[in-house]
């Protein structure tokens, strides 16, 4: 039966950590496919676009309507129709359908990209003047000067930055060990309990943010009366939001640690906790860091959980455990509804700072996510770690 030589090929390396983040994994036998646009396709497309534009232009001029958005929509619909008809007459119905679908899919993707670009651009345009009016001042000052007559150079988000860093930090410290341990448990066992927990984690990932805030308000702030509103309460609410996110992401990362590694360690007689600490976690480190940083980025901008719990405080409060505290999303929410162009401008400035923080975290997470498991790019202390491991071994 065992004729023929079986070559032992190594199992394919499970590619990217957090497949959702990494680049599209190339199939081992990806087929060649004609891509690119031929000259005739280009001509047909451009011709239809120009024809549609001309028609729309004439129609809107004749009707005397000035509506740029309406013109855009009308142009696109007309372009779609003309191009479809053209392809149908020239190439038949199948090709026409294919071309129109391609057009539709490109447009849909472009709409999504456009939305992202539009929001980032708008926040940048509106916020940059507040931040760079008197450059580092906006990042270090607090909001004690807030009022109808205040200038933008009086205001700042320093206190809010301190609050955000402390609250998100506490939430991270609480959730990361819990999340990773839960994830390890869920990967390791498949009983009804683990399945229930897994389902609950999934469901909680999309739970309404305001409920987390309400829950911690009832749990923490109500028993402690007004003094309960603090950075810690806000951090707890953020932790409620963050735990499912970190757990879910860590679960995916821990699950792709090769079983052979784990089994090799167990076969050598290592106890389970050592396998986790010395084999599973180091292997999954890049992925885990991606998961954690993404969780932090998602949580740093959450407003609803902190609304009832942080309290909001214009001046610096370095102590998250007592006294009300500001943070970035809370400050945006507070300033949006106050009258006055300057306060609005400060809200845009705060939004700009928040978006920058979140995007920087996101980019770090993506850079980490690109490194494969076991390989330790972007980890400066990796070499020291390696050496100590060898010595201990």
């Amino acid at each position: 039966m065992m004729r023929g030589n079986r070559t032992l090929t190594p199992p394919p390396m499970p590619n990217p950590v957090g497949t959702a983040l990494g680049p599209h994994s190339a199939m081992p036998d990806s087929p060649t496919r004609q891509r690119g646009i031929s000259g005739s396709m280009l001509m047909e497309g451009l011709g239809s676009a120009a024809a549609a534009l001309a028609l729309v232009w004439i129609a809107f001029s004749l009707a005397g309507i000035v509506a740029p958005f309406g013109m855009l929509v009308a142009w696109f619909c007309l372009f779609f129709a003309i191009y479809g008809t053209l392809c149908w007459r020239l190439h038949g119905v199948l090709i026409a359908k294919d071309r129109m679908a391609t057009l539709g899919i490109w447009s849909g993707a472009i709409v999504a990209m456009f939305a992202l670009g539009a929001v980032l651009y708008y926040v940048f345009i509106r916020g940059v003047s507040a931040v760079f009016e008197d450059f580092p001042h906006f990042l270090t000052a607090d909001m004690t000067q807030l009022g109808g007559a205040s200038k933008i150079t009086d205001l700042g988000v320093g206190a809010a930055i301190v609050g955000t860093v402390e609250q998100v930090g506490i939430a991270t410290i609480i959730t990361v060990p819990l999340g990773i341990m839960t994830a390890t448990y869920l990967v390791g066992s498949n009983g009804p309990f683990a399945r229930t927990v897994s389902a609950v984690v999934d469901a909680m990932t999309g739970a309404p943010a305001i409920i987390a805030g309400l829950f911690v308000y009832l749990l923490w702030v109500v028993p402690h009366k007004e003094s309960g509103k603090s950075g810690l309460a806000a951090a707890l609410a953020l932790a409620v939001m963050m735990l499912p996110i970190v757990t879910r992401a860590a679960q995916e990362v821990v699950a792709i640690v090769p079983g052979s590694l784990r089994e090799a360690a167990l076969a050598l007689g290592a106890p389970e906790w050592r396998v986790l600490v010395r084999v599973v976690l180091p292997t999954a480190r890049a992925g885990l860091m991606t998961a954690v940083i993404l969780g932090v980025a998602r949580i740093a901008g959450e407003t609803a959980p902190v609304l009832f719990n942080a309290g909001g405080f214009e001046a610096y409060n370095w102590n998250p455990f007592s006294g009300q505290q500001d943070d970035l999303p809370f400050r945006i929410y507070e300033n949006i509804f106050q009258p006055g162009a300057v306060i609005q401008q400060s809200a845009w400035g705060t939004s700009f700072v928040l978006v920058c923080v979140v995007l920087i975290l996101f980019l770090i997470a993506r850079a980490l996510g690109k490194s494969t498991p076991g390989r330790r790019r972007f980890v400066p202390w990796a070499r020291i770690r390696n050496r100590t491991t060898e010595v201990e071994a």
Partner: protein
Amino acid sequence: MTTLAAPPIPPVAPLVDDTPIVINRAVTRADKVFRLALGSSSLVVLAILAGVVVFLAAYGWQALKVGGIHFITDPTWSPDSGHFGAMSLLVGSVAIAVVAVIIATPVSLSAALMINEYSPVRLRGVLTGAVDCLATVPSIVYGFWGLALVSNLQAAPAKWLVTHFAFVPFFRTPTSGEYVQSIFACGLISAVTIIPIITSVSREVMSQTPRDACEAALGLGGTRWGMVTDVILPFSRNGIVGAVLLGFGRGIGETMVVVLILSKANRMTSAILGPNGLGSIAKQITEDFPTGTPMDKSALILLGLVLFVTVLLVNIGARAIVNRGQKAG
């Protein structure tokens, strides 16, 4: 004449190279503690879930006792004076999610197909990153952007719809003359916040389509769109439905966008293109809770419980559908 009989297949399990055998070795004390720690850490998530339900139910009980059936029947919302009409809030939350899903689904599925099938290889990473980035931008920033820019931009098309399509019950405005602060505007902005979730889940499911079947479809002379409609979409139908449901759940619970954009009102109406129509649970909680009387708070907490349980059930259902789809494939 001898027939070449195939060698009998041994009745044991098929040859599998690397299934570890299970060894029942003694578990050390450290490992017992370790297992206990892992198990109890996963209890925390369950404890949070139970805590949310218990706390909200305990504090909402007072309102439920007084309000009872009036939560659905009463037209006005003013718990302090004994009016518990929450129907328009419930309907409003769902309506926002429906509008958001209707807008987001085509865009998301296009983006998912684009990333998986249509895009040039070099663009894939960029597109994936951009979709993830959409998920990272805080929802208060979307809300602020929507308040300052988009809700004004959508006013003109909304006016056009009201003028020309008022025979459709939805395309009306509750108060004449204004087209901002509407359910539609909220849905439009919320759509941006749920695009990433629908895209990433449906993309994941679509990418599990057996590549052979796709290549076979192309090899038989099908067009790329033919491959999509006849292979990819049938295969990932469940997953797409689940993804859309997940987006729907997210849309119901969307808080900051709605708080910033929607007008504060609650009136039962089918008109979604203007202010002073349907309300929203999340907005009502956010704005009334800090200053409310004990009865107000209790009623709002009860609404919060309803919102939480609804979203939870939608999410569990959606995940179940996605997972079933993946197993069936």
